[in-house]
């Protein structure tokens, strides 16, 4: 792989980010009501609104305002959240690690287990095992994640009472060391489990589908007729090739993961980035919502870029032109 390919792909991000900024600006401009309030949020005090009007030149023509908006974002200023009394970027930075812990754990679990189950199901194609596995994953595939989360709370909070159903840690918890780690982990189990079951069917379906296709190829028949063990054929010959589409999807599914995280965090009161967005909706905290939307969009675009580069590196058939 050439450095020029990587550089060219990185440069392709620029127009996307500019388009996102323009989109954000258009939303502010087109929203009904006072644009200063759209920039500052419903909780902003009157003198701050006046400052916003002057700083953004809200009485000036649209191109001038767009330029002012872009300059501000370029300085890393995403606005101020009056509901939280903190700059938006600081808030995002505080909540991001929690969301990363939740989503990356769930993504890893879902991708590994989903891929393995999907490949297994494909090797049992046409049997009851395959039918049951496919049917069960279809149900999880279509289940609304916030409802799944509430059912989990119902089952674990009402009947089993084994695990905590909300928050990051126990209220008033004073232990340290391993006890603290254990308490944190116990609070993670249900949100991570819910998010895993939300993401798993995507990888199951993709791997199963591409594995079934690969198993029909001639080189598989050749490998089989050479007398290779079925296990070797499945893992070495079939799965390796069937994994490519799955790999692509892991990279471009950051948006899906964040959507799942938004709803899961909301239900479990897990104070990450998703729950922050929910709080923003609740308070009509527009700069916060816009900041999170912009931040996640850039994350999604970067992840898909990274996937393209990894893909070109893994699959020699991809040409760099």
């Amino acid at each position, binding site marked *: 792989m050439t450095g020029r390919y990587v550089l060219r792909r990185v440069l392709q991000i620029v*127009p*996307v980010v500019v*388009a*996102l900024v323009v*989109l954000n600006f258009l*939303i*502010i401009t087109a*929203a*009904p009501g006072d644009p200063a309030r*759209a920039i500052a949020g419903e909780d902003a005090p009157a003198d701050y609104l006046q400052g916003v009007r002057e700083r953004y030149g809200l009485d000036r023509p649209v191109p001038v305002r767009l330029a002012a908006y872009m300059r501000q974002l370029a300085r890393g200023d995403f606005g101020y959240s009056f509901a939280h009394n903190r700059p938006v970027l600081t808030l995002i930075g505080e909540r991001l690690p929690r969301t990363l812990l939740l989503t990356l754990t769930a993504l890893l679990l879902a991708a590994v287990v989903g891929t393995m189950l999907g490949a297994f199901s494909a090797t049992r194609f*046409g049997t009851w095992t395959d039918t049951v596995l496919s049917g069960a994953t*279809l*149900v999880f*595939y*279509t*289940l*609304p994640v*916030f*409802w799944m989360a*509430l*059912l989990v*709370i*119902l089952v674990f*909070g*009402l009947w089993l009472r084994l695990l905590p159903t909300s928050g990051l840690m126990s209220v008033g918890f004073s232990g340290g060391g391993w006890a603290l780690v254990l308490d944190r982990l116990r609070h993670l189990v249900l949100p991570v489990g819910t998010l895993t079951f939300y*993401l798993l*069917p*995507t990888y199951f*379906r*993709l791997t199963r*589908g*591409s594995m*079934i296709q690969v198993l029909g190829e001639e080189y598989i028949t050749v490998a089989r007729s050479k007398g290779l063990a079925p296990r070797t054929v499945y893992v070495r010959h079939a799965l390796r090739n069937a994994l490519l*589409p799955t790999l*692509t*999807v892991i990279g*471009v*599914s950051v*948006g*899906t993961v*964040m*959507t799942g995280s*938004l*709803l899961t965090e*909301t*239900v479990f009161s897990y104070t990450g980035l998703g729950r922050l*967005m*929910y709080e923003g*909706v*609740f308070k*009509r905290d*527009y700069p916060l*919502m*816009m900041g*999170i*939307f912009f931040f*996640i*969009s850039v994350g*999604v675009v970067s992840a*898909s870029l990274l996937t393209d580069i990894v893909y070109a590196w893994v699959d020699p058939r991809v040409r760099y032109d």
Partner: protein
Amino acid sequence: MTRWVLAAVSGDPGGHPVPPAIRGHGLLVRFLRQPGAVVGTLLVAVFAAMALAGPRLQPYDPLEPSDANLLGPSRARPMGTDELGRDVFSQFLSGAQVSLLFAFGAAGASLAIGVLVGALSGSHRGWVDDLLSRAMDIFLIIPRLFLIILLVAMFGSNLWIALLVVGGTMWPANARLMRAQVLAVGAREFVAAALASGVPGTRVLTRHVVPNALDPVLANVTLQMAYAALTEASLSFLGLGDPNRPSWGRIIASGQQYVLSAWWMVVFPGLALALLLLALHLVGDGLAAALNPRMGSRVR
């Protein structure tokens, strides 16, 4: 991007141009041969009937509070009452209307815009195509629920605004499918023959190319119906629903804080939503399999 759209644009089902489908009788037979597709169609029909009959079946005014708050299901109130003593079953029937409205309305708008933009993009190579394709790429990659939340929060939690926003952000997947199909169909001989015999280009596009290119888009739209209903429910669940229209997502949201004491507010509307989504997926999968003869042989 949802995980469902993800599957569609990454090649399954129908991300690649599908060979021109065998339409008509054979298609219907292949569709009806799949038990899942039949069950799904029947379920959607039941929900549609429920939405159409909705107001006539409501035993109470869905928005009228009473003293009987948080009552469990009984013969008089089959789904119990909510925290303000409103009848959950009456709200549930209103919710069916909202969900079906989004499934058909938003997905219908997305189909219309997607077909138009995709046909335009596929038939006008050059800067028109470049511009439209770029716009599709950007819309496909941004986290759509976050954008929808932002738009509905800023433009108002009104049923029709939300419908417009959901439909108006879903079309790029259809446009991309349509564009690929138009390119594939446009290269076939009968199009060249029509053009050579002097039929105007626009007429060839609308009468010959688009009808032959539509099938995979229709299969995708079935999945978008599910996505539209789910998005409405998610919006309502997050507190962005229309305050004057009870919807399944809103009943679940108000039931959330009483989930341990009043399970009926969460369980009944959620179950209906899950069933509707499952049914639409069964129809969509069945349609995709019936349209793709190679996959069709695998369908049992």
